[in-house]
């Protein structure tokens, strides 16, 4: 009984979340057109929107920051500078909340994260400076292209739970980029090592630029790079990605803070809404159908990506 009611319930809950996500800014906009909107309407709508993003992001298996920037940038009246600044803080706060637990369980590895974070942090500063220097319309267009690229990646990327790494490369062996963790599903101890580290480092340089420039976090790129390219187990890739993000987003966030592009009235409700939503989303993991939510989120991202692209091109303002 319960089983059969699962999918329709999860579908309707997720559809309701996604519908509300789009309806809230429209409601606030119509209130503003009436000239009766109070200052707190938008931050409140932002909090609710981020709460809903947090709920759907966890079962969809993506970071809330990836949804945050295109959706809030596309449908809320805030300038993209402030949206990206808040997006970085949202991604940073989520990463900071999760990293200690992941480190203790071995699902995140400090030794694996350090070299990748060093390069990605440095390039994230460049990305942030570039993003703040470019005209907003150019950043919107680039954001639209990147978000549509993320959609393509989500639709096509394969995952490998335990990739086979016959031999670590010299660099990863020298830096002892290996570890051990207990796989919760099978209960067995998994020893892992990585390869193709130099190529991974180059990839993380580019990932850092994107993270800093768009403020979207970069779990969507970190995880495939760690898992498919470097051969880290999927769970270690996801956990270490969070640890790398906590360092990369720190560097980029400082650039935005120093430039006055972090507005507390936008950043704080976003962080709080997202973290509360993510907690609910994590509790609903057993109820919600991950595949259904994933499809809805991909549709939402597709819509948000097109919106960013058309907004940047001046076609849909």
């Amino acid at each position: 009984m319960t089983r059969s009611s699962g999918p329709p319930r999860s579908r309707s809950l997720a559809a309701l979340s996604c519908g509300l996500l789009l309806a809230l800014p429209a409601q606030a906009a119509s209130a503003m057109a009436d000239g009766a909107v109070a200052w707190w309407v938008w931050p409140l709508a932002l909090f609710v929107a981020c709460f809903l993003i947090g709920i759907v992001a966890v079962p969809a298996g993506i970071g809330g920051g990836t949804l945050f920037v295109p959706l809030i940038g596309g449908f809320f009246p805030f300038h993209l500078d402030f949206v990206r600044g808040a997006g970085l803080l949202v991604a940073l706060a989520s990463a900071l909340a999760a990293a200690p637990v992941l480190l203790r369980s071995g699902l995140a590895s400090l030794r694996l994260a350090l070299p990748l974070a060093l390069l990605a942090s440095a390039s994230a500063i460049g990305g942030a400076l570039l993003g703040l220097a470019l005209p907003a319309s150019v950043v919107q267009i680039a954001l639209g292209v990147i978000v549509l690229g993320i959609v393509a990646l989500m639709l096509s990327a394969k995952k490998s739970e335990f990739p086979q790494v016959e031999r670590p490369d010299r660099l990863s062996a020298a830096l002892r980029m290996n570890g051990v963790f207990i796989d919760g599903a099978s209960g067995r101890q998994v020893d892992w090592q990585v390869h193709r580290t130099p190529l991974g480092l180059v990839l993380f340089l580019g990932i850092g630029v994107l993270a800093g420039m768009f403020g979207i976090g970069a779990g969507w790129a970190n995880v495939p790079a760690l898992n498919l390219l470097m051969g880290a187990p999927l769970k270690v890739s996801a956990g270490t990605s969070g640890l790398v993000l906590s360092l990369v987003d720190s560097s980029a966030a400082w650039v935005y803070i120093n430039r006055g592009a972090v507005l507390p009235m936008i950043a704080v409700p976003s962080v709080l809404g997202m973290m509360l939503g993510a907690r609910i989303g994590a509790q609903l993991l057993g109820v919600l159908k991950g595949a259904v939510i994933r499809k809805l989120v991909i549709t939402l991202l597709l819509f948000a990506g097109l919106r960013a692209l058309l907004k940047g091109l001046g076609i849909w303002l």
Partner: protein
Amino acid sequence: MAVTPAPAPPAAPVPRQSPEQLLYARLLDWGARLGFVLLVAGFAAYVLGWADALVPLEQLPQLWNQPADVFRQRTGMPAGWDWLALVHKADVANLVGIALLAGCSLPPLLAAMGLYLKQREWAPALLCAGVVAVVLLAASGLLGVGH
């Protein structure tokens, strides 16, 4: 006949992570918690009007659709670390919690670096120092503040 349940198979012991990783996790946990508490407290004080704000709340909707540089010019919000001089303003005070979250990785990195150095593990110690230097450079405001 009483049925004695079969004993559960012993759970696999959780592998012990390295002391540097555990220390990093502990310090990051404390720093992040402190940052979140300050963030929430500062924001509550801001929206409840417990202190004056640099930019009155009612004026925000006319300003938050402007680029960050224009926002700074119109409100007198300083760039770089000069906001510390205005930290008695409720909106600017929120930056304390935000700055703490953005900087809370530094103590764990320094602590891990210390442990690596103790064990004469030069490469990871150097990597920790490198990340610290990058975050400090970003935080310093030396790179492209204001234009």
